């Protein structure tokens, strides 16, 4: 990656971090706690997504 692209990308990421951080703090504070069952119901489809990506990699 050329230097100016690196610098531009870094600036964009820093700005994103600065803009997103206050919203992130609010989301973290307001997020309800999930039970173990609720986390399992979320992690199972996400695990399937991970397995699907592995399958795609094997197919390429």
């Amino acid at each position, binding site marked *: *990656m*050329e230097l100016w*692209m*690196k610098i*531009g*990308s*870094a600036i*964009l*990421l*820093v*700005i*994103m*971090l600065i*803009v*997103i*951080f206050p*919203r*992130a703090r609010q*989301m*973290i*504070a*307001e*997020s*309800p*706690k*999930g039970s173990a069952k*609720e*986390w399992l*119901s*979320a992690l199972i*489809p*996400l695990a*399937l*997504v*991970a397995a*699907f*990506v592995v399958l*795609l*990699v094997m*197919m*390429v």
Partner: protein
Amino acid sequence: MSTPELVRTRAIESTLATNKLIRNTYTLLSMTLLFSALTAGVSVWLRMPPMTYLLGLGGAFLLIWLVLPRTANSASGLGVVFAITGLLGFSLGPLLSVYLSLANGPQIVGMAFAGTGVIFLGLSGYALTTRKDFSFMGGFLITGFLVVLMAALANIFLQIPALALAISAAVIFIMSGFILYDTSRMVHDRGETNYLLATISIYLSIFNIFVHLLHILGVMGGDD
């Protein structure tokens, strides 16, 4: 009207509003995805330089942060949404050109496209049909996203290929979580009542999954 009737009427109104929000969001999402694909095609055809990716992303995020919040409740908000998705699609041109130039490039791009579609439809379908509340994931997802952003920032200068792959895998995982989270917010009426904002949220998740799936497939399946 008696109290039970009032409660029932309000529940019906709430359900209708939720269904309308979901319908409008997915209709607009399909239109913006098509528009985005069109602008991406134009960008590839015009052989836009690599700088287009950075400028497109920067421009789109400026619109998201500064313009969209002010126009989300007006008619011009629709134009802003198409401007955002059009810019993001256009910014993909240089990236797609690089992958298409690989020996199995069209296959990689096609698989990334199809894979993104399957992931989105599967997760959305799961959230809509099970009607589970995934609002508890918000804090976890945004924290993960911040960590990924910081890792990506560091890797711009470290240039570690394995870290880049790990970041892409993490982004796909987090954005998949956001699809569940955003869909659940619409279904359970948890603060998302504007279909323009809901569309952009889900669009960004799909966009990020596509870009990072393309990266993973390009590295693992590319001709080096």
